[in-house]
């Protein structure tokens, strides 16, 4: 577990079941029928990117591929559309992991914003090549809300790792 430069504290490694639990939770959020409201965050790539940055050795392109396929099936999108985008996202997030974590959370979000946009651009390109219609520029708003959610969700997903190895009853945190 890598520290951010704000806290030099070494966190516990994330439990693998917790990683997959959070990813499935994100999948559930992704499936909520929200109509065509622009700016609804894409939960799966967000959580995937967080884990790719925090646990680059354990979460990577394979996980991105599998969850991409699950999103494809659930949304009735073209098979491989989300998988392709998430694989590329995981590749770049893994590569950026060593650098990004030295910045505070808000600047991390700035680092991740282009990646989220790239993810969506890939999906648009794939579907436009296949003859679909352009969904409108507001489609890219969800990248922005993803970047805004980066900091709070990072804190939320890191909370379990803050537990000390030896629990001391006098110092609960």
């Amino acid at each position, binding site marked *: 577990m890598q520290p951010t430069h704000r806290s030099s504290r070494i966190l516990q490694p994330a439990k693998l079941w917790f990683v997959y639990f959070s990813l499935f939770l994100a999948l559930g959020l992704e499936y909520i029928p929200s109509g065509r409201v622009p700016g609804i965050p894409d939960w799966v790539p967000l959580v995937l990117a967080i884990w790719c940055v925090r646990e680059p050795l354990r979460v990577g392109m394979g996980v991105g591929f599998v969850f991409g396929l699950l999103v494809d099936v659930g949304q009735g999108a*073209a098979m*491989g559309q989300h998988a392709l985008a998430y694989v590329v996202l995981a590749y770049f997030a893994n590569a950026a992991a060593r650098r990004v974590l030295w910045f505070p959370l808000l600047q991390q979000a700035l680092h991740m914003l282009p990646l989220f946009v790239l993810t969506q651009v890939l999906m648009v390109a794939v579907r436009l090549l296949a003859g679909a219609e352009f969904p409108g520029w507001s489609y890219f708003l969800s990248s922005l809300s993803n970047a805004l959610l980066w900091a709070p969700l990072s804190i939320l997903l890191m909370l379990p790792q803050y537990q000390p190895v030896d629990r001391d009853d006098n110092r609960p945190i």
Partner: protein
Amino acid sequence: MSFVGHQPPPIFKRGPAPTARLFAFVTVCLVLLVADLRFRYLEVMRDALSVVTYPVQMAAATPADFVLNASHYFATLIEVQRENADLRRQQLSSGERLLRFELLELENQRLRELLDMSRRVEVKSIAADILYNAPDPFARKVILDRGAQQGVEAGLAVVDAKGVVGQVTRVHPVQSEVTLLTDRNQSIPVSVLRNGVRGVLFGSGQGGLEMRFVLADADVREGDQLVTSGLDGVFVPGLPVAKVVGVDRASDAFARIECEPLAAIETSVQVLVIGRTAYPPPPPALDARER
């Protein structure tokens, strides 16, 4: 091979290089995309994966259902009364038309028997509610609350009170996915009600419709009504589809005919899934000379 006779411990072992893995995954994804979009090979894989996704989807749809139902529940009494009065009036007028229709159908059947023509196929219909827009933002699709268990099949036509809304393109156990006529990849064979000129209607992508493959000198005028021709063997013939709103003959060998859907395609809530109970026999095979 190290010279002390054993392999070094795998401290830095991370499998193939990330770039190599990226290329492998991207290749797999592209193969999947082509197989799905171009050849439609992957429906089996989709069904298999939906075993995993279906429970999650159902769980996710529950809060949305709850919110929708709550807003229905709190609709005011006055609105309901007004709607009720409207419906009574509509039922009266359609009841009268139904009486005449039954008479005409009987007459039609007798005349066909007299002329020794084949019977018209009977039509089956399933009432359904539109649950929500499909989450895929690149296509104009909606999800119905009836699926394979209620007898919905892929390919059936979906109509509302005024005309055709779309076509069932994918069927799940208790839900089905309908591609609206305004989707760019959706087409429907139609004929002009006035004189029977045939053509194919495509979604234009901006919410309108376009009739293609009609010769520039064909007799199609503004205001003509288009109905399904039934030539595809899938749609029931005679369902109202669209109205011609503009004809441009100057551009090409084919006329540019813009149409406007009759049904409230993007806003209707209650729909009927309509299909033939029997499909026409397959076309006779071409002999070698014609091929």
